């Protein structure tokens, strides 16, 4: 049964990814002009445009361009940047070791903060302390992630110099150095995400607090905190996992911005750099890779969600 579900969900996710790839391709290579017109601008002669189209491989029909691109994505040939001629694939692979650990670290920090904070504010929801955390999460959600980054950087990097204010030491050179480069970026990401997660944890725990089995646990003499930790969190995990899945895309979006604040050579700075340079070919491929990561994460949370909640296993 489980295998059947996994298969169906995976197929559905792949279908979604294909649809997304078509949309991305249409948006960047077809509608409103292609890479050649963008590069050369509105003053270009027809021959220049035709020549450049040929160089970019745009002289074939759009469906064929799409198929070539898709074939390349699957085989690992993600095209070449029109500016540097450098192949996109290897560059992308070089940058994954920055973006993925950063995103995961941000997520971890967010959860590490949100779980206890949400729990506490739920348990104390009628007291000032609980309300304070609630208010804090409201404010946290309103903070732009790059502003949080700038403020943290201003103090911890510029003022006291505990962490670097920019740049990335490659993992191959020094693992502690790489971690050091990621601390401030991940904390910036994590704090904002924690604000969002805290509210869900709080809400989920409050629901759990009304449930029968918790009342039972309390009746056996456990405190709120103990009973919730032992029994409640598992139930709170379900909506939390859903939220994590939903928010992962947002988290990735935040990573894209954060990489530009801290000058980290990851996928985020790659795509922003490509957008700045109107390098549509690079934007296209990187966007698809980012979309694939999001789809994969959603699939994973969807499947784990079913695994966590026994009631859904047969669905």
């Amino acid at each position: 049964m489980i295998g059947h579900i996994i298969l169906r969900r995976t197929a559905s996710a792949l279908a979604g990814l294909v649809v997304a790839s078509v949309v991305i391709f249409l948006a960047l290579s077809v509608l409103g002009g292609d890479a050649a017109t963008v590069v050369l601008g509105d003053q270009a002669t027809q021959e220049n445009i035709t020549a450049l189209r040929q160089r970019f491989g745009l002289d074939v029909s759009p469906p064929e361009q799409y198929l070539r691109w898709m074939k390349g994505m699957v085989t690992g040939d993600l095209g070449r940047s029109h500016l540097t001629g450098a192949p996109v694939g290897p560059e992308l692979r070089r940058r994954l070791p920055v973006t993925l650990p950063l995103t995961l670290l941000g997520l971890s920090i967010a959860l590490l903060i949100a779980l206890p904070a949400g729990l506490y504010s739920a348990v104390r929801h009628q007291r000032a302390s609980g309300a304070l955390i609630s208010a804090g999460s409201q404010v946290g959600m309103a903070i732009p992630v790059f502003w949080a980054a700038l403020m943290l950087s201003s103090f911890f990097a510029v003022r006291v110099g505990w962490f670097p204010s920019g740049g990335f030491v490659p993992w191959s050179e020094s693992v502690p150095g790489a971690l050091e480069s990621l601390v401030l970026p991940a904390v910036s990401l994590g704090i904002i995400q924690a604000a969002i997660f805290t509210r869900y944890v709080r809400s989920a725990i409050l629901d759990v607090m009304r449930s029968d089995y918790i009342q039972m646990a309390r009746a056996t003499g456990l405190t709120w905190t103990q009973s919730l930790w032992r029994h409640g969190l598992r139930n709170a995990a379900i909506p939390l996992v859903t939220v994590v899945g939903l928010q992962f895309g947002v988290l990735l979006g935040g990573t894209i911005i954060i990489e530009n604040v801290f000058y980290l050579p990851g996928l985020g700075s790659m795509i922003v750099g490509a957008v700045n340079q109107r390098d549509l070919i690079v934007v296209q491929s990187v966007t698809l890779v980012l979309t694939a990561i999001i789809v994969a994460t959603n699939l994973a949370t969807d499947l784990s969600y079913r695994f966590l909640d026994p009631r859904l296993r047969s669905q």
Partner: protein
Amino acid sequence: MTERATEFREPYEVPELSAEPVSRQRGRRRVPLTLWGGSLLLSLAPIAAFVSFFWTPKDPTAQDIEQRLSSPGQNGYLLGSDGFGRDIASQLMAGAQNSLVVGGLGVSLALLGGITLASLAVIRSGWLEEVIMRLSDVVYAFPVVIVALILSAKMGPGNLPGILAVAILFTPVVARLVRGSAVPLFEREFVLAARAYGRGRTYVFFRHILPNLSALVIVQATVMFAIAILLEASLSYLGLGVSPPTPSWGRMLRDAQQFLSVAPWVAVWPGLAIIVTVLGFNLAGDGLRDLADPKLHRAVR
């Protein structure tokens, strides 16, 4: 970046609307504190933007290199001056215009598109509903930043990519919300009564159903507005927003980064402006939701 799924406990769970149509609700509900506080905060930006049309402490684009990086209160600059000697307070006020334009247009387009789509789905039924469901599934978790980046790559920098990104991404969300809430309403007595009168589905939708959804739609609008403001700030920070010298909160932060060690306040004020405005929209949305359907949150009070 601080995009929220809607406040519902599970995605897509549509809250029960009050049993009676809006027109017949009796008694005044107590307006929650969040609504008051939120409305107060979020009104600061439009007031500042409006006033800035007529007056700002100094000309927001006027440079005075001699007085660059003045600290707050120094040289007649209320909140200090930036790297070119421009008044930060005036820039904040004028920058509000830009943020609100992006928010306003983006949200309006999303609402327009979403309601239109939903009305078509409800009135026609059939495959369009399926399409809306699938579409909103796909875009629901997709970061609006990436959509905006794609559009910027194509269209070049400016406000338009941000506006369109919000419109494109949220049209399916609004459509799903409106359609999802509209369908159960079709079974209500007042609708059945209207249908008995011979009114068509279209008339019923716009005349009876949509007004009952107004609270829901407004709540969603506040969420989208907050996201749009954060998006505009992010794009401007990345250098993809509106060009100088038009003031923009996000670009103020971009320019301020190099002065973090010598003049940190240049980065503090625009950030606070964004936080206050976004917080205002979020709180107002929460308050409105509480007002419209206290049942949802009664358990958690």
